[in-house]
Every structure is written in structure tokens, then in C-alpha cells.
């Protein structure tokens, strides 16, 4: 993963390189290498700017006035106004939505991990009739587009009386996170040694106790990756909240709220507040990302590198 782990230069390799039918002599090659490396940096730096500039530009816009936002895009605010941040906090209720998101995602991720690990453990470690059926039932969920289920899901949520409730949102988040969680954790539990669990059985630990006290701690690396995966996936959900908690504005989660605020900002003519609200939605995520970037990168890519 890193370049610093490069082994030290092996002296015996040097003559071989010189003998190699490279592009004539050492010097031009070295120059070409330098040019290549310079161009590499240029290309990489351009993309880095492409990523950073729109974000910074949005943050800066939160300090502008309405007129400045609709003036030249590339001028800094004449004076840095902080009041849009206050207005965004007060009028758009952004703090409430942030808290809602934290509340919903912590519960739904917790239960996703609990139920997902329970199902995966039983599937991976116990032989019983229907084991394969249960496994494929869970895994097949990864293949279906959510939109296929949209109509019946909406009806189920209504019929159970959990439409416009946190409970409904959490249940649906958990259910739709199970396929990947079960798939990944089943594979993970299979890789763990059986000897420790057997020793626990001999010492008289029951199945449940073995699971919680022996297997869960052993599965920690896998659990951490998938927890991160689920937290980010559920935090960023947009479709599920807009169909499950559309009406009750007090229950909205962040992405859903931001999308709506952006349309009302047009009516209210308060663009700096929208930019401030947007920044407030982005900054906490940025901070957490910078702190945990290594874990987050490996958590999100966990599904693709097996």
C-alpha cells in the first residue's frame, strides 16, 4: 500500500540495470525519469485540486453576501460575514437533522451489526437443514435494485404503522444492510480457527456465550470494517428516508434535509445560509474522514478486495 516500505536498494542489481538494453546510456533515462515524475505530479495535483476546490469554494461562499454569490465566482468576500452560519443553524434546523442522523444511524448500524453477525455466525459455523437456502436468500439481496421493491416496501411500511417513524426507518436500514453484512461476515467467520470455540465448549460455555465472548472479539477486524461500511452507507442514504419519513419534517435526516433546503433557499433568497448549511453537513464528515481515513478506506473497499 505504501511506497515507504520499499526494500533498500540491492547493490547486486545495479550492474544488471546498466546492462539492460535501455534507452541508450544512463543520463537520458534519468532525465526522462525526472520528466515523467514531474508530469505525474502535475497530473495528480490537478486532480487533487479538482477535488478540493469545489469544497473550499462552497465554504467560502458561506461567508459571502447574496449579491457576492451571484457576482464573479472567483472573488473572495469583501468582508467575511459569519451571520449566514447562525441563520443556517437557526432557520434551517440543521442541528436537529444532524442529531436525527446520528440517532438513526447509531441505532441502525448497531442492530445491523448485531443481527448480521448473529446470522452470519450461525450460517458459517453450524450445519443444519436449509443452511444454504438461508445464505442464498441473504446474498441474493445484493443483486436486486432497491427500486424493484419500492412499491411493496412503501405499502409494508404503511401497513405496519411505521410510516413516518424512526422505527420504520431503522428497521428498513437494518433489513437492507443485511445482505452485504451477512455475506461479508459469513466469509469472515469461516476464516477464524475452530479450536478456540471448541475449547470454550469443553470448558462449559454455551453457544450464546461462546458467540459473544469468544467469537465476536476474534472477529473484531471484520466487524470494524463492515461497521464503517454501514455507518457511511446509512449516513448517506437519501432514497429510503424520502420514502419512509417524507411527511414529518422533525424526523428528517441530513441528506434528505439538505436536498429540501436547497429548493427552499431559492424561494427565500438566502443562498449564503444554504452554503453554510451545506458546509455544516460536510465539515463533520470531513473531520471524521481525516482522522480515520485509513480505516474508512479499507472499510469501504472491503467488499471489493477479498
Amino acid at each position, binding site marked *: 500500500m*505504501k*511506497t515507504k516500505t*520499499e526494500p533498500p536498494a540491492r547493490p547486486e542489481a545495479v550492474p544488471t540495470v546498466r546492462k539492460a538494453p535501455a534507452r541508450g546510456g544512463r543520463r537520458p533515462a534519468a532525465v526522462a525519469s525526472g520528466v515523467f515524475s514531474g508530469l505525474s505530479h502535475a497530473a495528480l495535483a490537478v486532480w487533487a485540486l479538482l477535488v478540493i476546490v469545489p469544497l473550499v469554494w462552497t465554504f467560502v461562499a458561506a461567508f459571502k453576501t447574496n449579491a457576492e454569490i451571484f457576482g464573479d*465566482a472567483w472573488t473572495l468576500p469583501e468582508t467575511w460575514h459569519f451571520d449566514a452560519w447562525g441563520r443556517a443553524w437557526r432557520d434551517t434546523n440543521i442541528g436537529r437533522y444532524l442529531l436525527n442522523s446520528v440517532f438513526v444511524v447509531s441505532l441502525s448500524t448497531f442492530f445491523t451489526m448485531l443481527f448480521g453477525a448473529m446470522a452470519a455466525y450461525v450460517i458459517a459455523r453450524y450445519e443444519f437443514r436449509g443452511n444454504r437456502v*438461508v445464505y442464498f*436468500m441473504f446474498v441474493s439481496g445484493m443483486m*436486486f435494485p432497491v427500486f424493484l421493491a419500492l412499491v411493496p416496501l412503501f405499502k409494508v411500511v404503511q401497513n405496519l404503522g411505521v410510516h413516518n417513524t424512526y422505527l420504520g426507518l431503522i428497521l428498513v436500514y437494518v433489513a437492507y444492510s443485511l445482505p452485504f453484512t451477512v455475506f461479508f461476515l459469513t466469509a469472515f467467520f469461516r476464516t477464524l480457527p475452530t479450536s478456540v470455540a471448541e475449547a470454550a465448549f469443553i470448558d462449559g460455555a454455551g453457544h450464546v456465550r461462546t458467540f459473544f465472548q469468544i467469537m465476536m472479539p476474534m472477529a473484531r477486524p471484520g466487524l470494524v470494517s463492515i461497521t464503517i461500511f454501514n455507518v457511511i452507507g446509512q449516513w448517506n442514504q437519501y432514497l429510503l428516508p424520502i420514502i419512509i419519513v417524507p411527511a414529518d419534517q422533525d424526523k428528517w435526516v441530513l441528506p434528505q434535509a439538505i436536498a429540501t433546503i436547497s429548493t427552499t433557499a431559492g424561494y427565500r433568497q438566502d443562498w449564503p445560509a444554504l452554503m453554510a448549511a451545506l458546509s455544516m453537513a460536510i465539515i463533520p464528515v470531513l473531520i471524521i474522514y481525516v482522522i480515520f481515513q485509513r480505516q474508512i478506506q479499507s472499510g469501504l473497499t472491503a467488499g471489493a478486495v477479498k
Partner: protein
Amino acid sequence: MRQGRYPFIIGFLAIPVVLYAVFVIGPYLQAFQIALTEWNGYKAPEYVGLENFRELFQDEAFTAALRHHLWILITLPLATLVIALFFSFLLNVGGGAGKSGTMRGVKFSGFYKVVFFLPQVLAVAILGVLFQSVYRPTESGMINGLLAKVGIAPVQFLNDPKIALWSIIGVVVWQSVGFYVVLFSAGMSAIPKDVFEAAAIDGAGRFTLFFRVTLPLLWDTLQVGWIYLGIAAFDMFAIVQILSVDQGGPDNSTTVVALEIYRRVFRYSDLGYASAMGVVLFFMTLTFAVLTLRVTRRERIEF
């Protein structure tokens, strides 16, 4: 310790299975049934056979959406994977030949990876709102403001039906590249160094290294990436709904099947018809995944 096995198995599976059956499997199966009916959600559904599907293919918005998926399916994975491969190659071997003839990554590659990956952790909904300002059609838009400085007339990124879809795909590429850079970098660093060394000693240049060594050894990862992006190409709901003008406009030029489904359900209460679209979407996704796995299957190279 074999007693109590079945109660334990049932006890552990009960909640997850019930939850999953009620909210996921049940709805998926019902959708196929509802697709054969006309139903507004209140009266009893009326069985109409394949009528919905017949209507679908005369529905201009729907056929437009299908065309868009085809374009997205080609351009989104292609653009994302090519850019990501290019950058991960630069990051991992772009530092040129080391003293020992091995290829080195560029300096600060850790920093670049952190930055590139960043959009991946932001919600699509939030990016949609952000890019509304970036794409604004006057000099107050981030891009048009820059174009104005060099005397180029403002581009109607989202208002011109000819380019609106591309502007939206651009955002998704922008967001996805970093994910694949990290993925490919992990894949590249898993390739043993002696493979590169051996090739370099045999006189392979940078480009030979890339096309003859790196690419074949990354094939599995590339395949996974293609499938992920392909599946993403069949979704696109949040970004189109939030970023495009008139949700899928102008003039249906950016609409996607998911958006048509949503509209049918929540604007027209045409639930049977919406489910029929869902069924088509399902078969398209399935066909794509199976085809990709078949066509790109290659012998696995173990190392």
C-alpha cells in the same frame, strides 16, 4: 456440547430472517405480482397481464431513460476506471526507476490517496446540491466563472439537453475515481516486487510494465470495479433527482428508470406501472452482471 443446538440456531436466525423477509424478500417478490396489475394503492389491484410492459415501451420518458442507462453504462465505468488506473499507476510506479531498477511510487502518494478518496464519503444528495452551484450557468458558477476569465461564453451545463446528462455523469466520475484509485493501489501493491523487477531487468519500459504486467495482474479487481460501476449506472436516482433541472430534465434529457419509478409512485400513484419498470430494471441489472462475469472471465493468476 451438542445439546441446545437447534434452539440456538433458530434463536439466532429468527430476528434477522424475519426482518429481512418482511422488508426485503417479501417486497421483491410482490413487485413481480404488482407489475401485472393496475393499482392506485387504494382500490383492489386489477389484473391486466402484460399490459403495463406493452405501455412501457411506448412511454417516451421510459425509453429515454433506457437510452440514458446505455450511455451511462458505457461511459461511467470506462471514464472512471481509465482515470483511476492512470492515477494508481502514477502513484505506485510513477516515481521512476529506483537505484535497484525497481519502480517507485511518487512522493506524497499517501496524501493524494486521502484527497482523491474524499468525495466517496460525502452523500450523493449533498454533492448534488453542491454541484448546482458549481455548474451555475452564469459567471457566478464555479466553472463558468473560470471560463469567463478566459473569455469563453457560459456553458449551460444543466440546461442544455445535449450536455446535461454528461454534466451529471461527470459528478459521479468525480466522486468515484478515488475509490478505485485506492482499490487498484491495494491491488498493485499486492503484486510481488520481483515481478516488476524481473520485467524491468528484461528491459521493459514503463508502458510495457503497465500493459503487460500491471493490467493482467489487476484483472480481477478491474472486473469487480466494472460490475460495481455498472450497477451504479442503473441507479443514479439521487444525483439526477437533485442536480438536474425539473428532476430528469430539461425535456427528459437526463431522466433514469429509478426516477421514473419514483415519479409514477409518488406523483401519479400508478403502482402497477411503476413495478413493471422495476421488473425491467431488475432484468437489466441481472443481464449486465451475468454478461460481464461471462465475457470478462479469465484464468485467475495466483501469486
